[in-house]
C-alpha cells in the first residue's frame, strides 16, 4: 500500500519551503519580533510562560504547568518534575483552566433586595457583612455567628478564618466541608496513632507489590495514582490489585480480583482478616509485642439522628486474650452470609496481608469515611496492617486518600474545625496558650469547648441558635445530606447567609450577600495534599473585576469589625506573612513546615520538614526525625505504641425493607468534581457527562420493566427525584442497590440521603440509605 500519490515529495517540499516560507524565515531571524516557532501557539510578540501550580481539583495534588499568555491561562501540561504525577494528569486537570472562563463568573458583589440579588460595590458588601456579624453578636452572642469553609480553602484562607473566629471573635463556630469527607480518616488516625495524616506517601506505590482497594473506585476518583498502580503492573509480574467494593466499576475491571461485599460489612471483613492472620499464625508478634497496645471503646454508639445528639468514646485497656475471643465471631465461615464474601475470598485477602513476601498498600477514601462507623473501619484497617507489621516502611502502607486539594493542608493541618486550633485542640490549655501567644490575644478569649460540627451547625441555623453563616468555597445546598431541611432552615426569617464563590450555585441562591472570589491562581496560596505535601502557587492572573481572594475578604471584614491589630498584613506580602506566622504553630520535628522560599522553589514539600529534609515515612527512627531509636516509634501516643482497637460490626441506621427495598449509594464520576460548579462549566467535561442518572443492576431493571435511558423515580423517606436509568454503562451496582452521582445541581440526590453520621467523627454517611425505585 502506498500513499505516494497524496504526499508531496521532498523536492516539492523544498521548493515550497524556499518560496513560501522566506518571509517567515526572515522574521524568525529576529527574536522577539515574530519568532513564531519559539512559542507553542504562534501568537506573535507575547511570550508563553509555563508556571507551576497544584491542580485545583482532588486531593492527589498533581503538579501542573499552566501556560500563561497575554494575561490568560491557555494550556496545561503535567509537571514532569512533580513526584506526585510525574507529568501525567487526568481529563479534569488538563481542562481545569477552562473553569476560569465561564461567562457567568461572579465579578461583582451582590446583595439581596426585595428577594433579588443586585450588584453593589465590593467595599459596601464587605461593610454590610462586618456590620451584620457585629450586630448579630451584640444581640445573640458570639456563638450565633459562624463560618463554614472548605478543603478547597488555601492554607492562608483557613488560617485567617481560624484567627478571626477563635482568636478575634472568640467562638468555636468554625467548620469546613472536609467534615463531610475526611473527618473519619482524622479520628481513625488520632485514635490509633495519636496524630493525624498518613505515615507513608505515594512513593510506597513504587515499593509495594500488593494493592487492596477498599470501597474506592480509584480509576475514576484518583485516576493519576491508579495509573501509577497500572504502570507498576506492566513492569512487574507479581503485582496484585484487589478491588473490594459494593459496586462493579472501572477499577474492578482493571484489577486482578474484584470482590463484592454487602454495604456496611467492611467492618466484619476487616475483623475476619484479623481473625485469619491470628489463626494461621501470620501475625508479626515481635512487632505487635513491642509497638502495639490493645484497646476497646464503647459499643452500640448511635447514629446522630437525634436533634441534640452527644457522644464521647472512652478508651479502655484490652487484653490480647479478650481480643482473640472477640474475633471468634468473625471466623470467615461465620461472616460469609453477612458480608456476601465467601470464606475462601476472606482467607485469600488474609493471605495477601499475611504473606511475608508481600508489601501491601491499602487504599480507601469515601467508602470508609462516609460511614456511620467511619472511625471504626479506619481503626480496623490499621489493625490489619499492625498485626501483619506492615506499616511505616517503604511499600507497607495503609493509605487514606483525600478528595479535596487542601482537605489535609487547610482543614486538618490549620485545623478549621470546631474542636481544633492550628496546633492541637481547643480542649487543651497548652494548645490554647500557644495560640494566644502567637496571636497575641488574651488566653480567655479562646473558648475551651467545641460548639457545632457541620451537621449540628446547619441544624443550629435551622433552629435559630445560629443566625449568621459565612460560607466560602463550598456548595452545601448541593452537598448536605437530607438537604431540604437545611435549605429551609437557611431561608428562615432572621437568618443571614453570606456566600463567597466564583459562580452562581444553589448556595448563592439562598444567600443574602454574595462575594465574588478570586479562583485558584488568581491569588497566591498553598494547598496540602494527601501525602503531607504542601504546594505553593503564585498569583498568575488578575482576578476579574471586583473579585478578591477569600483570605483578603476575611481580612477586610475582620478589620472593619475592629480587629485591625490582629490582621496587619499588606496586600503585597500577606500570603508570605501569614505563612510565616502559621509556621510557628508547627515548630517541632513532628510537624515542621518548610520555609516560604523552599515552597516557592519546589513542586511541593512534605512535612515534617526538618534540617532541609522531607519526611517520607513517619514513626520509624530511620526515616522520621521525630522518632526515637532506630526502629518503630509511634510517638503520637503517650505509650509510644499504636493502638489495636476492638471494634465490632454494627448495622447502619436505615436498611432496605419492604417499602424501600434498595440501597442508595452516591458518589462521583471521573469527569466531574464534587458539586459540579466548576467542571460543568468546562465544555469537554459537560459534553461527556451532561446530567446525573441512576445506575441499576440489569436484573433489577428487568424485574421492574425498566430499559436503559427510561425515566424512573427514586423515593426515600426524605424526598424523591426523577432520573434516567443507566444500565451496564459506567458501572454496575450489585443487585438490590442503586447508585447516583451527586454533581448535578438540577438533580439533587441529597434530597433523599440521610443525615446520620459517625458518632465519633460526626461525618455523615452518603453511601447508605433506603429507597424505592418507581417506573414512570
Amino acid at each position: 500500500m502506498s500513499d505516494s500519490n497524496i504526499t508531496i515529495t521532498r523536492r516539492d517540499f523544498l521548493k515550497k519551503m524556499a518560496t513560501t516560507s522566506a518571509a517567515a524565515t526572515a522574521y524568525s531571524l529576529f527574536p522577539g519580533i515574530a519568532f513564531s516557532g519559539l512559542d507553542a501557539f504562534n501568537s506573535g510578540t507575547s511570550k508563553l510562560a509555563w508556571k507551576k501550580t497544584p491542580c485545583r481539583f482532588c486531593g492527589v495534588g498533581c503538579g501542573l504547568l499552566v501556560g500563561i499568555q497575554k494575561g490568560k491561562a491557555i494550556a496545561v501540561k503535567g509537571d514532569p518534575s512533580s513526584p506526585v504525577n510525574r507529568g501525567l494528569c487526568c481529563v479534569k486537570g488538563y481542562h481545569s483552566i477552562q473553569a476560569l472562563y465561564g461567562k457567568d463568573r461572579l465579578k461583582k458583589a451582590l446583595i439581596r433586595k426585595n428577594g433579588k440579588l443586585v450588584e453593589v460595590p465590593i467595599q459596601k458588601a464587605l461593610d454590610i457583612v462586618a456590620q451584620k456579624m457585629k450586630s448579630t453578636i451584640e444581640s445573640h452572642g458570639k456563638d450565633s455567628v459562624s463560618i463554614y469553609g472548605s478543603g478547597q480553602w488555601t492554607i492562608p484562607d483557613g488560617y485567617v478564618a481560624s484567627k478571626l473566629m477563635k482568636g478575634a471573635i472568640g467562638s468555636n463556630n468554625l467548620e469546613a466541608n472536609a467534615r463531610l469527607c475526611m473527618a473519619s480518616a482524622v479520628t481513625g488516625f488520632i485514635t490509633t496513632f495519636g496524630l493525624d495524616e498518613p505515615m507513608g506517601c505515594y512513593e510506597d506505590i513504587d515499593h509495594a507489590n500488593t494493592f487492596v482497594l477498599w470501597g474506592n473506585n480509584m480509576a475514576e476518583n484518583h485516576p493519576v495514582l491508579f495509573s501509577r498502580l497500572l504502570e507498576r503492573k506492566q513492569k512487574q509480574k507479581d503485582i496484585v490489585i484487589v478491588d473490594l467494593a459494593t459496586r462493579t466499576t472501572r477499577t474492578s475491571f482493571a484489577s486482578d480480583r474484584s470482590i463484592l461485599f454487602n454495604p456496611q460489612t467492611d467492618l466484619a471483613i476487616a475483623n475476619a482478616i484479623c481473625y485469619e492472620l491470628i489463626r494461621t499464625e501470620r501475625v508479626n508478634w515481635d512487632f505487635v509485642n513491642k509497638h502495639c497496645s490493645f484497646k476497646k471503646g464503647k459499643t452500640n454508639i448511635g447514629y446522630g439522628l437525634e436533634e441534640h445528639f452527644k457522644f464521647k468514646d472512652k478508651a479502655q485497656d484490652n487484653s490480647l486474650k479478650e481480643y482473640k475471643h472477640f474475633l471468634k465471631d468473625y471466623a470467615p465461615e461465620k461472616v460469609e452470609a453477612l458480608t456476601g464474601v465467601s470464606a475462601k475470598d476472606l482467607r485469600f485477602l488474609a493471605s495477601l496481608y499475611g504473606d511475608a513476601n508481600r508489601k501491601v498498600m491499602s487504599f480507601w477514601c469515601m467508602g470508609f469515611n462516609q460511614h456511620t462507623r467511619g472511625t471504626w473501619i479506619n481503626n480496623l484497617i490499621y489493625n490489619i496492617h499492625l498485626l501483619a507489621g506492615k506499616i511505616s516502611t517503604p511499600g507497607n502502607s495503609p493509605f487514606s486518600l483525600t478528595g479535596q486539594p487542601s482537605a489535609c493542608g487547610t482543614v486538618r493541618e490549620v485545623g478549621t474545625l470546631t474542636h481544633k486550633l492550628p496546633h492541637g485542640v481547643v480542649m487543651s490549655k497548652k494548645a490554647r496558650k500557644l495560640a494566644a501567644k502567637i496571636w497575641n490575644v488574651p488566653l480567655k478569649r479562646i473558648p475551651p469547648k467545641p460548639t457545632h460540627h457541620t451537621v449540628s451547625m446547619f441544624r443550629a441555623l435551622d433552629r435559630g441558635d445560629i443566625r449568621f453563616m459565612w460560607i466560602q468555597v463550598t456548595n452545601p445546598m448541593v452537598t448536605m445530606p437530607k438537604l431540604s431541611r437545611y435549605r429551609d432552615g437557611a431561608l428562615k426569617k432572621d437568618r443571614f447567609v453570606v456566600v463567597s464563590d466564583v459562580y452562581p450555585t444553589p448556595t448563592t441562591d439562598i444567600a443574602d450577600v454574595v462575594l465574588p472570589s478570586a479562583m485558584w491562581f488568581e491569588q497566591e496560596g498553598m494547598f496540602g495534599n494527601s501525602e503531607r505535601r504542601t504546594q505553593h502557587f503564585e498569583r498568575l492572573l488578575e482576578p476579574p473585576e471586583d473579585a478578591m481572594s477569600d483570605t483578603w475578604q476575611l481580612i477586610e471584614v475582620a478589620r472593619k469589625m475592629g480587629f485591625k491589630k490582629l490582621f496587619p498584613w499588606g496586600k503585597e506580602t500577606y500570603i508570605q506573612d501569614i505563612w510565616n506566622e502559621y509556621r510557628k504553630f508547627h515548630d517541632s520535628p513532628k510537624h515542621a513546615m518548610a520555609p516560604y522560599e523552599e515552597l516557592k522553589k519546589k513542586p511541593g514539600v512534605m512535612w515534617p520538614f526538618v534540617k532541609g529534609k522531607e519526611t517520607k515515612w513517619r514513626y520509624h527512627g530511620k526515616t522520621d526525625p521525630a522518632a526515637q531509636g532506630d526502629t518503630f516509634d509511634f510517638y503520637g501516643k503517650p505509650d509510644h505504641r499504636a493502638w489495636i482497637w476492638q471494634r465490632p460490626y454494627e448495622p447502619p441506621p436505615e436498611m432496605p425493607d419492604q417499602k424501600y427495598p434498595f440501597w442508595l449509594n452516591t458518589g462521583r464520576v471521573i469527569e466531574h468534581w464534587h458539586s459540579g460548579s466548576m467542571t460543568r462549566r468546562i465544555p469537554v467535561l459537560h459534553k461527556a457527562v451532561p446530567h446525573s442518572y441512576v445506575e441499576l443492576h440489569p436484573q433489577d431493571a428487568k424485574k421492574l420493566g425498566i430499559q436503559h435511558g427510561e425515566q424512573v423515580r427514586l423515593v426515600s423517606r426524605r424526598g424523591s427525584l426523577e432520573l434516567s436509568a443507566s444500565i451496564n454503562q459506567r458501572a454496575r451496582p450489585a443487585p438490590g442497590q442503586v447508585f447516583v452521582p451527586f454533581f448535578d445541581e438540577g438533580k439533587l440526590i441529597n434530597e433523599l440521603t440521610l443525615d446520620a453520621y459517625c458518632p465519633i467523627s460526626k461525618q455523615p454517611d452518603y453511601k447508605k440509605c433506603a429507597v424505592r425505585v418507581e417506573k414512570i
Partner: protein
Amino acid sequence: MNSDKSQFRTGLPFIIICVILFVAVAFILGEALRYGLKNQTSDSVEHTFKKSESIILAEGGSFLSQTNAPSKNSQPNSRHLDQFYHRRAYPGAPPIVPHPVDSDMNPFASKCLTCHQHGGYVPKFNAYAPVTPHPQLVNCRQCHVPQVQDELFKISMWQKPKPPSIHQSALPGSPPYIPHSLHMREKCLSCHSGPSAIQSIKTTHPERVNCRQCHMVLQTTEQWERP
C-alpha cells in the same frame, strides 16, 4: 542493445547504492531496537530524555508492516489538521474520543489499543485509526472522553489558542522545528507517519527514523551571547 546497455550502466550503481542503503538501514534499525529495549526499563524522571530518544529510534518503521487495508470500493476518511485541533481544547490537550465506544465500564487499553496501538484500517468507521504516542498508559479514559451532546451547561468565554504554524525552519529548506512539547509525544511517527497521519504534517521520509537528528524543539527565544 545500446539502450539496454546504457540502462545497465546507470542501473547497476543504483542497485548497488540500494543494497548498501538497505543493509545500512537494517543495521541501524537493529541497533536502535536493541538500544531501545535495553533502555526501556529505566523509569526515573532524569532518564526521560534518554528514554524518549531510544523510543524514537525503536519505533522506526512501525508502519512499514501495515497490513490492514480498506476494500477497493471504500473511501477511507482522511484526517485534516483543522479537525485535529477541533478535537482539542488547546494545542497539546488530550483529544476527545470522536466515535462511539463499546464499553464505558471497561475502557482500558486492551480495547482501545486494538486499533490505536499500531493503527490500520478500521472497517467499522471506514477510517484509519490514529496511533497513540503513549501506548504504555492504559487507563485511556483518564484523559480521553467521548462527547454525548453539543450543548453547554453555561456559556464559556474560553478562547482556543491558535495552533502552531507548520514548516517553520531557520533557513529556507532546512529541517523544520518541532513546534510542540515532546512530553508524552515522544513517538514522532505515530502522528507524522502512516496512513492515518494528517497530510500536512506527514513526514516525507519515515524511513529516517532518528527524527531528532535534524528536528528539534526550541527552548528559548534568546540568542546566545558570550557570558
